């Protein structure tokens, strides 16, 4: 399918002219990632949405928290599905088209959800935020990845780390903004969720459109001044692999498991950090202090995305994941000891480093894929790999919640109920270590031939641009 006839959206129209600074591209990516990162803050709407009819107390027809929990779950599910399904389209259509589509879906999801709140129909919110918003999450998440890698061949980890840090940081903006807007729109007879959704939809649309306007792709074969390609390295390929051929390689599935296990280990404790800290240190960590602990973890989650991905540019992707697995193993095994000796500072230290590596796992993986499969389809391959996130989103919380419940029901004191979980998480990281160890260079038979590469460029509309 020829996609170059898209006018302003066409990939060829986004090729940078001489004098364009590559440092304009990370803010363009952040315009999208900071907006879609709102998903992490959706929980601020949960309680107000249970009182839309009763206003000050729960009415019989008001929605239950369990029903509302499905909105976020649906959005994350469709993030994984859409990034896998639309990855190739995003790659070949270019970042502007993808960012614009994500902006329309994200804003549209909010506006549809506002209508759902207005007529009090939860299915419309499932459709709006859950399905359409979830598609925006998937398309928006992968839209700037390959563009950033092409602009920063000397520091691909740092470049993608900046964008993916934005996804972690989006909640920091969304949570206080949403609370402030709801206060402004709430009266004695009305909860201001609908108006807040409308305002957020409009604000996020404008923000994301700015990103799609300023984003540019580099001309073919562009390189930064003074850039010297890395020396021949079997773990950094100079060849491209077609998106669906990547699925046939063992490396894809090994990295899939590395990401899945790293995320499983982190996501389980992230969701339960508040309760876990209070139960392991009863009377020492209060609910207010626990909320502070969760906030600190969010900051390390965001900071880890940038720092670890940047470190990977210097020590290599495979070594970075080795650090995640070995250091994570040591820290998870240390947590029960911290609980036993009553050391809050050791407990906090362990979890802050663990959660930084959880974030780092997300941000380092695009550069890992680029090393394995080249830059041509790295965004699309990254999209397929994000299904590991969806899987981990189910595994992690289930492991933590069910093992804790099992232990408590079998007489284990609450302060020790998480110990087994910590050892299981450590064991998962051992498996992750083995998977990472088995990652070798991709077989040459999967490399794209020069004529295939040219055909791909034609589809992407770059052949004309470079002529």
């Amino acid at each position, binding site marked *: 399918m020829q996609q170059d006839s898209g006018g302003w959206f066409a990939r060829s129209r986004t090729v*940078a*002219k*001489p*004098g*364009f*600074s*590559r*440092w*304009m591209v990370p*803010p*363009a990516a*952040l*315009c999208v990632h*900071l907006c879609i990162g709102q998903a992490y803050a959706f929980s601020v709407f949960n309680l107000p949405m249970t009182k839309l009819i009763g206003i000050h107390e729960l009415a019989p027809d008001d929605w239950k928290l369990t029903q509302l929990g499905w909105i976020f779950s649906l959005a994350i599910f469709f993030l994984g599905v859409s990034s896998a399904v639309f990855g190739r389209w995003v790659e070949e259509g270019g970042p502007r088209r993808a960012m614009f589509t994500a902006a329309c879906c994200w804003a549209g999801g909010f506006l549809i959800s506002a209508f759902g709140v207005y007529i009090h129909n939860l299915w419309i919110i499932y459709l709006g935020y859950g399905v359409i918003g979830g598609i925006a999450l998937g398309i928006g998440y992968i839209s700037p990845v390959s563009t950033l890698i092409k602009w920063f061949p000397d520091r691909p980890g740092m470049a993608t780390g900046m964008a993916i840090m*934005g996804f972690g*940081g989006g*909640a*920091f*903006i969304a*949570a*206080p903004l949403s609370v402030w807007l709801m206060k402004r729109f709430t009266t004695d007879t009305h909860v201001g969720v609908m108006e807040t959704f409308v305002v957020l939809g409009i604000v996020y649309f404008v923000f994301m459109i*700015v990103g799609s306007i*300023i984003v540019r792709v*580099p*001309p073919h074969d*562009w390189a*930064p*001044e003074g850039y010297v390609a890395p020396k021949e390295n079997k773990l950094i390929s100079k060849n491209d692999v077609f998106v669906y051929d990547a699925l046939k390689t063992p490396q894809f599935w090994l990295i899939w498991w590395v990401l899945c296990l790293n995320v499983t280990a982190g996501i389980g404790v992230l969701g339960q950090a508040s309760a876990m800290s209070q139960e392991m240190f009863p009377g020492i*960590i209060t609910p*207010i*202090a*626990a*909320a*502070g*602990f969760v*906030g*600190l973890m*969010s*900051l390390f989650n*965001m900071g880890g995305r940038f720092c670890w991905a940047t470190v990977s540019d210097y020590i290599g992707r495979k070594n970075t994941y080795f650090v995640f697995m070995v250091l994570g193993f040591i820290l998870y095994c240390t947590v029960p000891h911290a609980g036993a000796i009553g050391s809050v500072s050791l407990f*906090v230290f362990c979890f802050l480093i663990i959660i930084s590596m959880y974030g780092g796992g997300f941000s380092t993986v695009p550069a890992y894929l680029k090393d394995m499969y080249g830059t041509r389809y790295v965004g699309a391959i990254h999209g397929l790999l994000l299904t590991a996130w969806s899987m981990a989103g189910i595994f992690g919380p289930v492991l933590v919640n069910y093992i804790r419940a099992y232990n408590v029901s079998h007489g284990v004191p609450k302060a020790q109920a998480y110990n087994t979980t910590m050892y299981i998480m450590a064991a998962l990281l051992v498996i992750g270590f083995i998977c990472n160890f088995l990652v070798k260079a991709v077989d040459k038979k999967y490399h794209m031939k020069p004529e295939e590469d040219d055909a791909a460029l034609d589809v992407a509309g770059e052949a004309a641009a470079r002529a």
Partner: protein
Amino acid sequence: MSNGNQNGTTTLHLVLAWGFVGIPLVLGVLQTLVNAMKLFQ
């Protein structure tokens, strides 16, 4: 095309672009940091 500024991108462009995303992010991070300090109170 370069790492720095030539004809196309000016310093003002860069300041505006980074400010557009950086200011809300820094404000959000500061707000979270203030809340996180409750852990140490």
